[in-house]
């Protein structure tokens, strides 16, 4: 099966791939191809996100976005499987891995397809009176567009994983909701760790920022700020995580 044929099946009938999880030869041949699709599709989407800043950020974001899509699978799939088992819908590892990888590959391909539209928006610039070139789309709007795009293309991933759950009714709903929460929280924190994807045009480019705070506190602060409630001392991102003491 060529990559193009696999892409077609992935977009039209992903369940066809998931249902062949028991076939070991098929599993061994399709998993590398799915990973290639994830890397290619996500890299294109990442490159477009990085194009807002331009320069080496295009490369940085193209490298980081496939990692953003794959890390949550490694971290959260054991929890998803445990949730499914406790919900009375036990899943074989092969089926879960194939469903998750198919979902991410589907998401990556759709993200790549959305990329030209996003690039069109990000590429609009104008020259100011100070002869500096500015983006028409403001930085915060660009970040929101990127985040909204990630959320929109993340839906096929959830649908594909949900289709893999053998249970029906309330059990499937509970397992799906809990799995979505687990995958979502891990995806958000991974995105926070790997930021920036869409970088400010005026800032110095950095591949990764130091490990500091977490996505939830950052979102809380942003929400309060958007509502006009500013902390008098502001929000300072402090080092966090298990290794914070060694950096002080």
């Amino acid at each position, binding site marked *: 099966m060529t990559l193009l044929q696999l892409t077609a099946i992935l977009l039209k009938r992903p369940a066809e791939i998931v249902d062949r999880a028991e076939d070991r030869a098929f599993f061994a041949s399709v998993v590398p191809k799915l990973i290639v699709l994830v890397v290619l599709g996500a890299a294109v989407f990442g490159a477009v996100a990085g194009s807002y800043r331009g320069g080496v950020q295009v490369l940085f974001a193209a490298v980081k976005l496939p990692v953003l899509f794959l890390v949550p699978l490694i971290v959260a799939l054991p929890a998803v499987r445990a949730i499914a*088992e*406790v919900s009375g819908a*036990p899943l*074989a590892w092969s089926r879960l891995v194939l469903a998750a990888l198919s979902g991410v590959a589907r998401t990556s391909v759709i993200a790549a397809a959305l990329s030209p539209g996003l690039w069109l928006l990000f590429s609009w610039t104008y020259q100011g009176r100070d002869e500096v070139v500015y983006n028409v789309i403001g930085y915060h709007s660009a970040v929101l567009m990127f985040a909204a795009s990630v959320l929109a293309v993340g839906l096929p991933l959830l649908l594909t994983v949900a289709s893999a759950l053998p249970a029906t009714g309330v059990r499937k709903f509970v397992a799906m909701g809990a799995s979505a929460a687990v995958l979502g929280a891990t995806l958000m924190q991974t995105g926070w760790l790997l930021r920036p994807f869409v970088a400010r045009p005026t800032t110095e480019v950095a591949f990764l920022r130091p490990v500091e705070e*977490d996505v939830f506190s950052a979102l809380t602060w942003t929400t309060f700020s958007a509502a006009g409630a500013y902390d008098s001392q502001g929000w300072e991102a402090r080092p966090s995580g*298990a290794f914070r003491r060694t950096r002080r």
Partner: protein
Amino acid sequence: MSAAVSPTEVVSTVPDSPTLAHLAIAMAQFALLGAAAGIGSGDLATAVRTVPSGLAVGTGALVMTAPALVVMHQFLGLAADPDALVHTLSRGLVRGGRLAFGFAPMALFFATTTNLWAVFLTLVLAATGGTILMRLMVDLRRVEIQHPAPNPATRGFTMTALTAGWAGLAVLIALRLAWDVAAFVAG
């Protein structure tokens, strides 16, 4: 003749009658969750004290309330064998261990990248406990209903009331244990 199983269906691997080895593995899985989360404290002593936290709360609440459930079950004249109840509770512990173990990679991820290790551990233990209790209530009721009895009309309601009361007691005891465990972990 066995029931038809669809190609996508996977039978649960939780044993019907868990052995001591299964229970020991479940306890180790709880301990592993504590160890993974405790790394986030950035302090060796705190991390070591965190290892048994989930084990103490989850297993402690189950062990302390199981005799009450079995005694009240017999006292109320319900039909299922005490062995069947104990096996069901053991299966709950095995499931709880597996759920805790499933969350261990996430606990490690959040412990190493955020300051939320304690919040995460609390949330996971609460979710694990709540899920297992609800599952146990359903399973215990099923065990009772499936057992032949002379007075089948009221025992469904009686069993539901009994398991609900038992679950409430288990939650209260888990909270009490969690209070002590939190003080122990904080040093």
